[in-house]
Structures are given as C-alpha cells and as structure tokens.
C-alpha cells in the first residue's frame, strides 16, 4: 500500500465543465486495448459516463490543457490511461461513486482529496 507517486502531481488548473452532448465514442475500444486486456472493463465503464469524466481534471501531472482537456481525454486518442495508474485510479473512483449516486461535485471532491 505504500507509495509516494503523487508527490509531484498537484496541477493547479480548475476542473473543466463537461461539454454539452459529450459522448464516449472516442474512448478506446477493446480492439484498441488488445495489449491491455485487463483494462477493457475500465475503459468500457468510462465510455458509459463521458458526461462525468469530462467534468473532472486529471491530477496525474503527466500533461495539462490544452493537450488534455479532462480525465475523459486520458481514455481517448493515445490512451495515456493505459499506462498511468493515477488516471486509472481516478476513473475507477469516479465510476464507483457515480454508481453510488454521487453528484459530479461530490466525485470531484473525492478525487481531489485522494489524488491531489
């Protein structure tokens, strides 16, 4: 359980507003995740709640806007979330809290508390 992987990762830009009508169509598919089969379920879960992930800042510190708009972006395009445990952890927390009925505001609070 011991890690200091977040010591340097404290981006200071705000959470983005989710884009109206955002979809999960650009989230990587299982075919694109052939080399990372254990992540297919997570990417599938992200694809189902793009309106949530698009309203969350990624705290991994690997990149920042404009290249990376939101946590959703980490699961699209080059799919940096494939190789980033912080992106994966944030998304797993967001997916679970969304299933528990938490609001976007509550999810942001929890993610910042745990990962910032």
């Amino acid at each position: 359980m011991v890690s200091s992987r977040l010591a340097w990762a404290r981006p200071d830009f705000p959470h983005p507003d989710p884009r109206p009508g955002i979809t999960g169509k650009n989230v990587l598919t299982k075919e694109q995740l052939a080399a990372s089969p254990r992540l297919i379920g997570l990417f599938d879960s992200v694809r189902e709640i793009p309106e949530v992930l698009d309203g969350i800042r990624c705290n991994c510190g690997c990149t920042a806007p404009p290249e990376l708009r939101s946590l959703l972006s980490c699961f699209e395009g080059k799919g940096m979330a494939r190789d980033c445990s912080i992106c994966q952890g944030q998304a797993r927390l967001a997916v679970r809290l969304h299933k528990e009925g938490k609001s976007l505001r509550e999810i942001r609070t929890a993610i910042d508390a745990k990962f910032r």
Partner: protein
Amino acid sequence: MTFRFVALAAIAAPGILSAQIRASELGTVSQVIDGTKITLEYSRPRARGRETLFGTKAVKWNETWTPGANWATTFDVNKNVKVQGLPVAKGKYSVWMVVRESGNWTVVFEPDAHRYHMSPPDSSSKQVRIPVRIEAAPFTDVLTWSFPELRMNGGTLSMQWERARVSMNVEVEPSLAMTFPAGEAAAYAGRYVFVEKDSAGKDKTPTTFTISHEDGTLKGQFTPNDPYLKKFALVRIAPDMFAAAVYDKNGQIYEVLKPDMVLEFKRVGGNLTFTIRDGDDVLYGAGTRQH
C-alpha cells in the same frame, strides 16, 4: 580583451560553449516537500588544493559573497516558505552570504535573481536577511548545497565548502491538517469489527479496528497490531474521508498513504461503517462500529 571579459563572455554564451570544461561547473539541487518545490542552481567552485578559502582573497571577510560562482546562486520556490522562521515568498532569488570572521553570517535572499557574482546587491528592505550560525564540517572540496534532513513539514537546507557549513531550517506550508477537533472525534471513535478481503475478494477472519482521539489527532489501530502501520494517524482529506499516516520511531509522521490507504465512512440506519481502498480503488476491507 581582458581575461575577465573573456570569462564573462563564455558564461553569457552557453549555447556556443556549452561543452566547455569549467572551473565551476553548473549544478542544481531540487527538493519537493509536501508539494513545495525548492530548487537551487549554482556554479560549483572547487578548493583545488587550497586549504583555506574563507578570509582569503577567494572569499574576503565581510564580503557579500554568492555561495557559488559566476552567476549568483539562485533559490527558486513555488510556494511560500519560512527559512529560519522568516517568511520567504514564493519566487526566485539570488542568494548571497555576508561572511564574517566571528559571529553569525547573514544569508541574503535578493529578489533580483539574475546577478553576476561581482555585483552583490546593496542591502534593501525587499531582501530577506537571515542570520545563520557557522558550523565546523569536514573539508569539502566542491561547494555543495544539499537537503540532508527532511521532515513532513520541512527540512534542512545546507551549504558546505572548505570546513564551513551553513544549515537553515526550511518550513513549508502543510497541505493537510494532522490534528482533529476533539469535539468531532466521537463521530468516529470506537471499536469496529473489520473484515479484510483476500486477493480473491473473499472475506478473511474478522479482526478489531479501534479509533481513538489522542494528542489532538484521530488515530487508528488494528488488533492484532499491523507491524508497519502500528498506531497510525487518520488525516481528514474530505468529509468522511481519511488517509492513513504512519509515524516514525520518533513519533513524527513521515508518510501519508494517499491515495494508497483511504478510509471512507458511511452512516446507514444508525450504523457507522467504513471501507479502506487503495489507489486503484480496490477494496482492502470494511469495518462496522460496535455499539
């Protein structure tokens, strides 16, 4: 062209002469403490066989000297800190020392960060001027800045050259409050039945987890005792969310296990429960408070 001018030109054109071997090679030391990043950049003079440097033409007594060479040593910090108890606002400074044969030296943080070593600043109210004690140290050939001690909320910044060492206590702004109000502790304190999950997600034999309020801090402990965690602090990171923080042998917190050990509390029908999850949101176990 004088030697001095040639030397200055060489330093001013690093792109052309970057492969040049220098008497005082450029060095950096950087340290992050609880999200505060401190970086010193400095050229590193060498004693080169000289036994004595301070009080000689190398560094004269009462001189305002940059503890480095060429362009003045810089101190760059991304958040406000305190050095020897004196506030230093975030920013970049050139660093100088008033060296004295007896008594304290004075470390000067000068807001004009880009100054040549032959242009020491005059004293001004914009500077942070810090009296420091000189300690005897083993002979050090290459001037060295370092952080030889680190704590949760700061560390020691040290400059060492020849047989002199200057050590400064640096305090950073804490990102988390380690204390917990006594009046709120009852909402969490008590004995819990804790069930850990095995690697297959199945329940292990229930154990006991106890939350107490001691010395102004909320603390947790498993029974049987976890040899790594022992009695650890519960640091509130959000409403009903706590991170575990472990103590060293001196009773100082040295690591906050965030995101790797986070407790989330819930109140359901008069019962208080909590879960422990890691950074991947994997459930480590769950507890229920006993009445």
